[in-house]
């Protein structure tokens, strides 16, 4: 029996090594392919250059970074309040049975392929923004114009896409706040609403923050839905109704056709994306640590 266990142990070890190795190999590969462009073109020129025009040999990715960040930020602005409200409602307000149904409905959102989200955005949001949102904006700013392919469309779709992440992790965190906290608060004369805002949510904040950071990671990395609805215009945006190109979208669109030099530049874009996501993860770990390392597991 012992030998058999050893075998299983070895097998698990191989699996673990395979997973770790893949990360290392992918990282090495991206850097190997992309670093030469960063070196030749100059890191500062590459990151702060405002013109992305690979056929002309111009590889400034500032518009792409601005595009990715603006869409992600928009998604968070819409997604965080909605998601948090939903999580609080599910764990504190709704009846157990209806909460169960609602929660599985939200989690179902996670199972929809991103291209379907993109198609929904293309068919509903893009024309919707052009027909309904634009006239409203024009009341304030007469010169406003949009084709509908915009940051706003991307942000709305991404907000829906990150909802399941935010809702389910936050809901877990809120549910796992010890019942004594709630009882003590209520016993001290606080009403239900005060208990939620002053006691339960603060006690669950580390879980809530990690849910937001995970959601942010998903939003930055999303590709297919964004390609379809943001217009892919590599230009630093001036308003939420402008079209933008994102880092991931540009890589996906142009990789197929790219000449060797262009391809290396796309790998360099990958490096930037990679570093952004690593920084995000570090920030996530750091905040969790700072908040006392409370996790909800």
């Amino acid at each position: 029996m012992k030998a058999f266990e050893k075998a299983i142990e070895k097998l698990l070890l191989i699996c673990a090594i395979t997973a770790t190795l893949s990360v290392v190999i992918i990282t090495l590969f991206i850097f190997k392919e992309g670093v030469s462009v960063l070196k030749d073109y100059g890191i500062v020129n590459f990151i702060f250059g405002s013109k992305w025009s690979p056929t002309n040999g111009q590889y400034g990715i500032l518009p792409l970074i601005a595009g990715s960040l603006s869409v992600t930020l928009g998604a968070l602005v819409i997604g965080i309040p909605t998601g948090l409200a939903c999580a609080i409602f599910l764990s504190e307000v709704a009846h157990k049975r209806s909460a169960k149904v609602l929660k599985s409905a939200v989690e179902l959102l996670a199972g929809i392929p991103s291209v379907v989200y993109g198609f929904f955005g293309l068919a509903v949001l893009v024309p919707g923004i052009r027909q309904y949102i634009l006239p409203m904006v024009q009341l304030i700013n007469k010169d406003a114009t949009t084709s509908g392919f915009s940051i706003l469309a991307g942000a709305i779709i991404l907000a829906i896409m990150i909802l399941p992440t935010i809702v389910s992790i936050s809901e877990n965190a809120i549910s796992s706040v010890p019942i004594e906290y709630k009882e003590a608060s209520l016993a001290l004369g606080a009403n239900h609403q005060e208990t939620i805002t002053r006691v339960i949510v603060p006690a669950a904040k580390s879980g809530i923050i990690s849910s937001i950071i995970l959601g942010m990671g998903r939003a930055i990395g999303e590709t297919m839905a964004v390609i379809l609805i943001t217009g892919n215009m590599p230009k630093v945006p001036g308003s939420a109704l402008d079209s933008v190109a994102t880092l991931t979208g540009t890589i996906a669109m142009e990789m197929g056709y790219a000449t060797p030099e262009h391809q290396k530049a796309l790998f360099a874009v990958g490096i930037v994306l990679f570093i952004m996501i690593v920084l995000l993860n570090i920030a996530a770990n750091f905040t969790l640590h700072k908040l006392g390392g409370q996790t909800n597991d």
Partner: protein
Amino acid sequence: MKKIFSIGLILVFGLFLLVGCGGGEEPAETNGQEEETLSGTIVIAGSTSVQPLSEELAAVFMDQYPDVTIEVQGGGSSVGVKSAADGIADIGAASREIKDSEKSLGLDEYVIAKDGIAVVVNPDSNIEDLTMEQIQKIYTGEITNWSAVGGSDANIVVVTREEGSGTRGAFIEITGVDGADGDMTTENALVQPSTGAVKQTVATTPDSIGYISLGALDDTVKGIKVEGVDVSVDNILDNSYKISRPFNYLTNGAVPEVVQAFLDFIFSVEGQEIVAQEFISVI
């Protein structure tokens, strides 16, 4: 006994890993197998504009010769030229004229079809005709309002293809958007990654303009005249319609029998009938 079993397990697992790693290199080894009867594998790589036509031709050819396998890959015109030169593909496909720098590679060129690029506008547009100069100015961002070219007072929504696309390359070169400083396409253009996406965008976005292969033109968008000439097969063959391009097949040196048979098939009446379904026959 158990020890042997465990070692065996690890070996098997390791083997799986190795097999998994080796998978990527297989296609290269299967190239150029020839026998007395026509059989073997042909790899075609290159322009995604030529790809659907290549697939169509390949399907009929493989029906006739069941022992032949034809693999059609994308990658773009530049990749097509390079693959043929490097011997990665038996046939490289390019949807544009071969550049002088590429001519020096000494590849054999076969024009298998011609394709027109139709300039399309939203079906609700009242634009019927644009000159090459107007198209150039719209795409470089010099003209931004339809009223400047005889339309209604509305901003032009310019739709283009992604960087590196063969259709974009052909379009900017022919219309002169490709100026002294390279690709001068306006920054304010929506970029769509495929012919279908351009068509969809132009069909649903008011005041938009885009360009697609003639083969993809249908009623969802409105094809306009260029310099007063309708976009049509006859007008492209007699060169009166300006925005057109050849579909090239490129081979490197002496080709295997199976590749030669495929090329002969393309230039047969039957092959060109397939070409004519979507594109413009060259015979």
